[in-house]
């Protein structure tokens, strides 16, 4: 029992460092390690992973708050969609055949590696032209943020609120179902659909992750999917790892780490897909 706890602590530290450097939630790394590496039932892996998401989100939001770029109103309004989605997702995990969980997780990892590749190729941010939007004005979603590079306040407007809200519901389902932060989907809802600039999108998404995960984690907690011997050392490891990771990030060029990590994500994604399809080597 003692070895398991130490091993989990180690996995947590690794996931925390990797998450902080790569800008992805610990959840994406934890579930494959626990299921493929250690043969744990995927439902318990998801339970441990959602706790890791809360630890990561609460830890990193503190840093974002200092930067003053997030949009609290956008976060709160869209959290209605993500929390409902997260509860639906958590309930779905209980009834779904684990085979489908592996398949979905595999697809998610493949998508994430593509997304990371896309991020690498993205150039300078250009503020998109946005038509004045009635719903956005009514909900006071337009905001401004301070751009550190350009050293000035940037005002922005958002549009297409219903589409963003729907994508957020989907992001919530994915988060609850697979025990991930689903930050990539949240950023997509704000940046691609609502035309919000990338910086406030990503910090707002980080803030939302914790609240979204709290909704599904509550369901998992009370239905017994969260095993303390796994979740506790893992969460403690994540907190240590995230603190170390943010230090390491200041020294190492994150671009190169991303380039190395893309094939790793693809490989793990493939493994999860094979496991879901029942193919063995």
């Amino acid at each position, binding site marked *: *029992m*003692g070895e398991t*706890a130490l091993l989990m602590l180690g996995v947590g530290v690794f996931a925390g460092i990797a998450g902080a450097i790569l800008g992805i939630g610990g959840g994406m790394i934890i579930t494959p390690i626990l299921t493929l590496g250690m043969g744990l039932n995927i439902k318990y892996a998801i339970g441990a992973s959602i*706790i890791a998401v*809360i*630890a990561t*989100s*609460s*830890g990193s*939001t*503190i840093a974002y*708050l*200092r930067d*003053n770029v*997030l949009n*609290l*109103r956008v976060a*709160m*309004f869209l*959290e*209605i969609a993500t*929390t*409902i989605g*997260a*509860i639906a997702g*958590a*309930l779905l995990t*209980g009834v779904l055949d684990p085979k489908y969980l592996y398949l979905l997780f595999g697809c998610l990892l493949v998508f994430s590696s593509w997304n990371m590749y896309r991020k690498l190729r993205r150039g300078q941010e250009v503020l998109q032209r946005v038509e004045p939007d009635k719903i956005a004005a009514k*909900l*006071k979603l337009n905001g401004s943020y301070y751009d550190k590079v350009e050293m000035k306040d940037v005002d922005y407007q958002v549009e297409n609120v219903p589409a963003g809200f729907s994508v957020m519901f989907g992001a919530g389902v994915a988060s609850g179902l697979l025990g991930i932060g689903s930050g990539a989907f949240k950023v997509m809802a704000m940046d691609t659909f609502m035309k919000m600039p990338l910086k406030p999108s990503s910090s707002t998404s980080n803030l939302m992750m*914790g*609240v979204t*995960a*709290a*909704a*599904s*984690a*509550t*369901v*998992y*907690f*009370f*239905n*017994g999917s*969260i*095993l*303390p*011997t796994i*979740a*506790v*050392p893992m*969460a*403690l490891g994540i*907190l240590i790892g995230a603190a170390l990771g943010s230090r390491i990030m200041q020294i190492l060029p994150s671009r190169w780490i991303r380039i190395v990590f893309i094939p790793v994500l693809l490989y793990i994604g493939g493994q999860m897909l094979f496991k879901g399809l029942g193919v063995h080597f």
Partner: protein
Amino acid sequence: MADKPATAKEMAQVETVIGRILQIGVIFSAIVMAIGLILFLATGQSGYPGDTLPLQFGAILVGTWHLKSFAIMMLGIYCLILTPVLRVVVSIYAFYREKDHLYVAITTTVLIILMIALVIGIYDK
């Protein structure tokens, strides 16, 4: 302009408070989890028969009082889950101070959804 609430400055204060709450919540739950884990590793006993876990509030609190390692670990996990919930509660107060009734309603809705999650979790076994 005079009776318009000082949004930017007030919001900045609110964000500082939210950050502090997250910080305290995370540190507190980490300490509780660590105590439970150390106790479990030292005694090798969960305090419960077989693979059972304490899942009700009452059982967790009573178990914590009796220094059962699993109860303390579960309490720590629950405190960590509550950290973002607490953030929602503080935001409701912040929007209320700002006299933004629309956002008091929106944020309260989020809190109600989180409470529904609690009820669903308890009955979904």
